[in-house]
């Protein structure tokens, strides 16, 4: 059983009930009004085989948990014109996907998003782009993610685009 330490700071001004109310209102805006949906393809790290030396695996050996749809507020960076080699081997790929999600929402869905998981976000009706989580935002004890100094309420995750031969949904 997890140890639970009640948070009593700011108790004269702000309580758990207030916090829950704020989160509820925020979720109503985010899920009801904005309704930005993403899909989590979480890698099943217990059933996926990796090699003993480099912990690499071949594509067909990666196992995924069932995909889960969730809501978050999304920001996609501009596409970058880059080169593998200075001035040569050009490629243009989408910018990083950054999204913020309520921790309560993840708890309600009983999911966790970890470094290396894949996220699907539709570009258009015809195309879903996939991203790889490169920063899972699990450490969110900073002021930005704190709700009025009471406790952290959301996580901000950064994902890098992947090519379709790495992942294109399950």
């Amino acid at each position, binding site marked *: 059983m997890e140890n639970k330490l009640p948070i009593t700071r700011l108790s004269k001004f702000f309580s758990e009930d207030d916090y829950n109310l704020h989160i509820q209102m925020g979720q109503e805006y985010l899920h009801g009004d904005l309704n930005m949906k993403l899909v989590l393809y979480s890698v099943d790290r217990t059933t996926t085989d990796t090699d003993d030396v480099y912990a*690499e695996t071949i594509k067909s050996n990666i196992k995924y948990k069932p995909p889960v749809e969730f809501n978050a507020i999304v920001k996609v960076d501009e596409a970058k014109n880059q080169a*593998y*080699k200075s001035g040569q081997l050009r490629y243009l*790929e989408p910018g990083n996907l950054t999204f913020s999600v309520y921790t309560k929402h993840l708890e309600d869905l009983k999911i966790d998003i970890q470094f290396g998981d894949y996220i699907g976000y539709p570009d258009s009706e015809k*195309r879903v782009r996939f991203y790889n989580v*490169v920063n899972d935002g699990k450490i969110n004890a900073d002021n930005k993610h704190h709700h009025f100094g009471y406790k952290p309420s959301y996580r901000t995750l950064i994902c*890098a*685009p992947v090519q*379709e031969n*790495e992942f294109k949904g399950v």
Partner: protein
Amino acid sequence: MSLPKKNNINVYRQVGSEPSSKELLERRQELLEKITQHDTYLPDDILHDDLDKGMLEFVKDNFKVISDGEQIPIIPKILTVQRWGEISNNWTFADEDRNIKVPFIAIIRKPDVQPGTNPIVQRTIPERRQFHYSTVKTWDGNQMGANVYKIPQPVPVDISYEVIIVCQKFRDLNRFNKIVLQKFSSRQSYTLVKGHYIPLILDRINDSSPIESLESRRFYLQNYDFTMLGFLIDSEEFEVKPAINRAIMLYEFLDTKNYTKKYENKSIEIITATFTGDGSQTTFNVGESIGELFFVAINGQLQQKDIDYYWMYGTPRITFVTPPIPGATITIVYYAGKSNIFQDSYGRLLFFAVQYYEYDGSSLTFTTDHEIVDVIYVETNGLVEEEINFTFSGNQFTYLIEPIIGSRIGIGYLR
């Protein structure tokens, strides 16, 4: 531990295991190409693009890396900045955004080609002197001769290439590295360019994987730098010279494209052969014996026998003292019989005659000594006139266009 592989020696086939027809066809094709690849006695050109192609073939043939059960694609072109856009938009291994899919192997040539450092072909002879390459026998139908083929020393060049592997697995890097190091365990390897073995040297291996940025797509990128110790052979510098004095060598050319015949009189077959000069050809062959040579003209200008050209009676060749200029029209009008006796369709003997007049402005009609049967040519001051410029009847010959006074008029006719 894997079992040692058996050598797959199948040079001597077992009885009953016939090779497939495809195998034989390929071998026949290979032999045919080997036999016919040189269309002259001289070596083939080896220029920059041939050397680049040699590098491309070397990488495609030797650097095959299998990842996840599939070969890592090798971009089948030497890349430049401009080329990359085209390749990535057309290549099979591109994603929906037309970005090339990782993993892949690419070959980049550095644009600058440096003077060669291969000690075998480094410059030793100054001023591009020509050297004897071979002596080739010639036979022109009459005389045996020989041509000496001379070529200068090849120019050594060093060409730098980068072979790049972009992949996402460390094991792929290991596989590629193993192949390259095995191939270059003796520092150099060779690629075959038009039958010449061209050495390649592995200079260094660099890792350019973007490890500094955590929040971006991750991949490995390694460069393998190679130097090709090549050389250039340019056929423009080849020289072919006769081994004996050209003055006594006669060349014959029978180019059907330049060769036309016109039968002006069916009974005695007066033939007009036309050739086009190329600036070097001196001898023109009509392909049959010339019984009577009426005239030879270059661009309509009559040529003087034994002064401008030579012709031996009964031979088919006209040899000019100096080659007609390129594009010049050489006209040879002759009778193709074995003698210079003409007979018309009634069995009447005809004779060729030439008469000259000086135009004094009084009359355009001239009287010949004999009745004219057919006019072979009319010339004014050495220029052959077109047939529409004159008429004839009996022993009267009339100019339709007035020449300048004092012009020398010649008429060659059958009487």
